[in-house]
């Protein structure tokens, strides 16, 4: 019996090759797309879950609030919190901290930059690193120990043993020797704890560093807390404000109190740090959007599968009728068709496996991810996938099975009547649903793509071409560096600032609005006199700042005090916010300004520059104020000659080697920094386009299959029409209209939904494209055209066929 089912199912597949292919490949593509999306999302939600007891580990993060400026969000926490937590919260089992950053390693006289951690002594008890050599218990026995990662060992020593070797690392301004005490495996891709080498934290390195003190003002270390299993972390969270209040030293004077920021602490689960922390590198909303996309694609694929399975019912009616005549019970018929549909779904799943395996390397490369398809590794995916596929099979099969169970043999065995009427309507609904989703996705993908491209062409307000930014240039010799660079024939200009565009600034200054007592907040940026000319930011009134005494707010030389009056420049939005009716009106005006809560400044506006993007291009340009502060110019921006950039870089490298032989030169292209901002959105946009294309393809496969089927079935009807005088055109138009109808209905349903969703999405952008009718018309025409192209071949074939042949066949 079973072999008979298999035989007949298989022969049906072979007999209707095209149909079977469409049915299986449609579902397979849908399943594969769905799997790819879900694998990536699962990976994104699974960061750092490989550590032992990851679920008990939390990172302590900080928000600093200030009444007149924006919140500062830090993934780090104040140092004293370690002891406070250990003393006050009994559920805390352990706390470990580390500083992270790029550090210079000296090898054979050359300096290279690697990722280093300065960790607490209990670091290797806290996190279960895998040791390839050495021992976690003795790894930090000496303050001169260093634990290196496998890749580091390879780059430093090749195949030779690393244990006991000396590594020279620059910390606190000088090179120090460390002895390799252990080698551990490389960090996995989906972890926050990135490391080439790990050193024991040593306070002595930072003696005398103004910025590093173990108090509440500086946030420089990751603080990880391990709770006893089953701890109610919410109640610990509730106790945090009390702990801050109790332990944080109060400023002594009134001004200090006024200026103090409020410290708010957060406990973020280690496994949530990737998505929901102050240092999150991915957007959970976007991920959920893609989960939705996966669901829609699956829906289309399942609808397709259902539809094609049902379309085939009329083919099998005679078989079922005969089975009933010779005694098959309803139950047996139901079993047969449920089994058949499930088997088909399982075949599709197998094909989907292959598709996923084949496409995974490209997919990973595209997403810069390491998504792995470990179907057999955990029961989760295997069971989930199988259940899903079996459900799809059973649902698809149940329509057929029910229909056949109720089929009356005499209806089929004695009549020419098509047995298709009962499923026809449901099938139309499914086609409409498929195309509704596809069309909505097409509209969505179109606008996402257009907005992404629009953001790219947005005028930044400065010229990022041929600019490089050299980091770590806030030393006494930086001006000398600037002078030597300007001596190069290939370097056009050099400017300095505390931050550069795309990165934003943290300074917030309050200034008094013209003619009122109202205080307004402007974004502040310390620059040197050449900043605006290097970035080619146009002046619209007054003059740029110059290298003269009166223009300086603070100079490098001297006592480091701010001056009480200085000339400053504002941007156009700044002039407007301050109440000047036009930029020229602001020139020469002196505005009372609070540099900080305790630092007052008489700021005289000498110039107004045009607005330019300093934060992400997604954000609105904010009012800005620019002033010369020589002590805070960490970034040096160099405009290279556009005729010979290589020579300019070579000159930069030569000067750097000469001036700072033991420091790594670290520079980035301004163009890359701008590009980085768009990268994620570009990726998302491309991914959306690709998956939309898949969805449309699946829908078209389905339509194609249905058309070929319907045409087969209507051969006789069309023969009669031809005999009665219908022309080739009449018949072709009739068939094409039959298959355009569901698309037209789908358009009517999809377009309003798409308008709403796209509008909602666009409203999140400060600079956005307008919604016009043209793209909708275009998508509508495309959808209809795709539909026509899909069915036209069939329509013409059957319309051209000799009617006599069609009728004689009966």
């Amino acid at each position, binding site marked *: 019996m079973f072999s008979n089912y298999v035989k007949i199912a298989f022969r049906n597949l072979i007999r209707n090759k095209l149909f079977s292919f469409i049915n299986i490949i449609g579902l397979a593509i849908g399943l594969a797309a769905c799997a790819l999306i879900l694998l990536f999302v699962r990976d994104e939600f699974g960061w750092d879950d490989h550590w032992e007891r990851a679920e008990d580990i939390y990172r302590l993060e900080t928000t600093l609030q200030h009444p007149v400026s924006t919140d500062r969000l830090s993934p780090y926490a104040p140092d004293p919190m370690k002891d406070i937590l250990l003393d006050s919260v009994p559920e805390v089992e352990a706390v470990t901290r580390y500083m992270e950053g790029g550090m210079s390693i000296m090898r054979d006289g050359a300096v290279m930059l690697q990722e280093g951690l300065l960790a607490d002594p209990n670091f290797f008890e806290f996190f279960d690193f895998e040791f390839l050599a050495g021992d976690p218990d003795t790894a930090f026995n000496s303050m001169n120990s260093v634990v290196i990662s496998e890749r580091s060992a390879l780059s430093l020593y090749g195949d030779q043993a690393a244990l006991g070797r000396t590594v020279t690392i620059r910390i606190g301004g000088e090179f120090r020797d460390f002895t390799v005490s252990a080698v551990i495996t490389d960090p996995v891709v989906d972890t926050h704890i990135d490391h080439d080498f790990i050193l024991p934290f040593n306070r002595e390195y930072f003696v005398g560093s103004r910025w590093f003190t173990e108090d509440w003002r500086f946030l420089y270390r990751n603080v990880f807390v391990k709770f006893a299993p089953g701890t109610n972390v919410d109640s610990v969270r509730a106790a945090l404000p009390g702990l801050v209040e109790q332990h944080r030293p109060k400023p002594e004077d009134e001004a200090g109190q006024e200026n103090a920021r409020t410290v708010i602490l957060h406990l973020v689960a280690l496994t949530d740090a990737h998505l929901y922390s102050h240092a999150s590198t991915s957007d959970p909303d976007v991920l959920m959007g893609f989960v939705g996309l996966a669901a829609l694609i699956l829906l289309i694929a399942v609808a397709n599968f259902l539809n094609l399975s049902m379309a085939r019912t009329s083919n099998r009616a005679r078989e079922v009728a005969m089975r009933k005549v010779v005694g098959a019970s309803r139950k047996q018929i139901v079993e047969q068709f449920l089994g058949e549909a499930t088997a088909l779904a399982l075949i599709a799943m197998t094909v989907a496996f292959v598709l996923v395996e084949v496409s995974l390397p490209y997919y990973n490369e595209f997403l810069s991810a390491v998504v792995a398809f470990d179907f057999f590794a955990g029961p989760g995916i295997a069971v989930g996938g199988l259940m899903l596929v079996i459900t799809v099979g059973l649902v698809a099969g149940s329509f057929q099975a029910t229909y056949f169970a109720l089929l*009356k043999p005499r209806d089929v065995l004695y009549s020419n009547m098509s047995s298709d009427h009962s499923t026809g309507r449901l099938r139309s609904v499914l086609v409409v649903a498929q195309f509704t989703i596809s069309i909505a996705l097409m509209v969505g993908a179109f606008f996402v793509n257009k907005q992404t491209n629009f953001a790219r062409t947005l005028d930044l307000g400065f010229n990022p071409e041929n600019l490089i930014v050299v980091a770590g240039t806030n030393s006494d010799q930086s001006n000398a560096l600037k002078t030597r660079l300007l001596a190069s024939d290939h370097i056009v200009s050099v400017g300095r600032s505390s931050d550069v565009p795309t990165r934003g600034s943290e300074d917030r200054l309050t200034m008094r609005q013209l003619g009122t007592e109202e205080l307004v907040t402007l974004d502040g940026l310390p620059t040197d006199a050449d900043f605006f000319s290097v970035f080619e930011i146009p002046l619209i009134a007054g003059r740029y700042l110059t290298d003269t005494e009166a223009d300086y707010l603070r100079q490098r030389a001297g006592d480091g005090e701010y001056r009480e009056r200085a000339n400053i420049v504002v941007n156009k939005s700044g002039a407007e916010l301050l109440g000047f009716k036009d930029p020229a009106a602001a020139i020469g005006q002196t505005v009372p300004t609070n540099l900080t809560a305790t630092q007052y400044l008489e700021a005289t506006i000498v110039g107004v520059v045009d607005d330019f993007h300093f934060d992400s291009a997604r954000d609105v340009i904010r009012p800005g104020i620019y002033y010369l502060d020589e002590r805070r110019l960490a970034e040096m921006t160099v405009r290279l000659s556009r005729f010979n950039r290589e020579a300019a870089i070579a000159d930069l490298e030569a000067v750097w080697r000469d001036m700072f032989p033991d420091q790594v030169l670290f520079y980035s292209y301004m163009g890359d920094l701008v590009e980085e901002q768009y990268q994620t959105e570009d990726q998302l946009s491309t991914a959306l386009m690709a998956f939309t294309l898949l969805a449309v393809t699946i829908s078209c496969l389905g339509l194609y299959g249905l058309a070929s089927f319907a045409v087969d079935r209507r051969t006789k009807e069309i023969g009669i029409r031809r005999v009665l005088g219908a022309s080739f055109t009449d018949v072709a138009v009739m068939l094409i209209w039959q298959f355009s109808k569901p698309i037209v209905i789908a358009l009517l349903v999809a377009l309003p939904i798409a308008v709403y969703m796209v509008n909602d999405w666009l409203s999140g952008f400060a600079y956005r494209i307008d919604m016009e009718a043209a793209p909708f018309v275009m998508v509508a025409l495309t959808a209809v055209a795709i539909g026509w192209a899909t069915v036209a071949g069939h329509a013409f074939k059957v319309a051209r066929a000799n009617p006599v042949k069609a009728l004689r066949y009966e």
Partner: protein
Amino acid sequence: MLKLHNLSKVYRTDEVETVALDNVNIEIESGEFVAIMGPSGCGKSTLLNIIGMLDTPSGGDYVFMGENVAGYPESKLSNIRKQNIGFIFQSFNLIDELTVEENIELALLYHNIPSSVRRERVAKVMDKVGIAHRAKHMPSQLSGGQQQRVAVARAVVGDQAMILADEPTGNLDSAHGQEVMEMLQALNAEGTTIVMVTHSPAHADYARRTINLFDGHVVTENLRAAV
């Protein structure tokens, strides 16, 4: 074998009510060969379907082997049908995806018979209808007469006591038609009850009794002298 008493069948659609059979009384003995004749639309096929339990009567009694099956549910009818009744259709109704052998075997699939026994019986019946050399062929590779022989084999492979044939020669030329009729006659000689609907008086002559239907009524019953 079976007895129809005041049997009627009414088809209802939304607006029209069609009386297909009206007060039909027929008795068929075991081992008989009965032909049912009449013009198109007189209710021949409806009658045959009710006898074959593919359809249920609207009124009256249908006693089959001593059991009144008129009100039986589908599952019970299906069971009685598979034990006792074989069908032969004008349009053969062979399954295109199965070979000759497999088409015949289909009739045994739902009988809980081990596959070795099934194969044996299929081989035997194929010999009997002279189609053994085509065992592995698909229906589309056979002539009409050959296809109908396969259908006959399928109808009798389960040792059915009664064969219902609905214009079995309707799609065949006269030579092949005669071949099928001779086959049915031989089966009848072995004791199988045969009820056949036909348009052809010549083929009706193979039967021992002819029932003439007109507008859902039995008009005449002619008994032929034994041949």
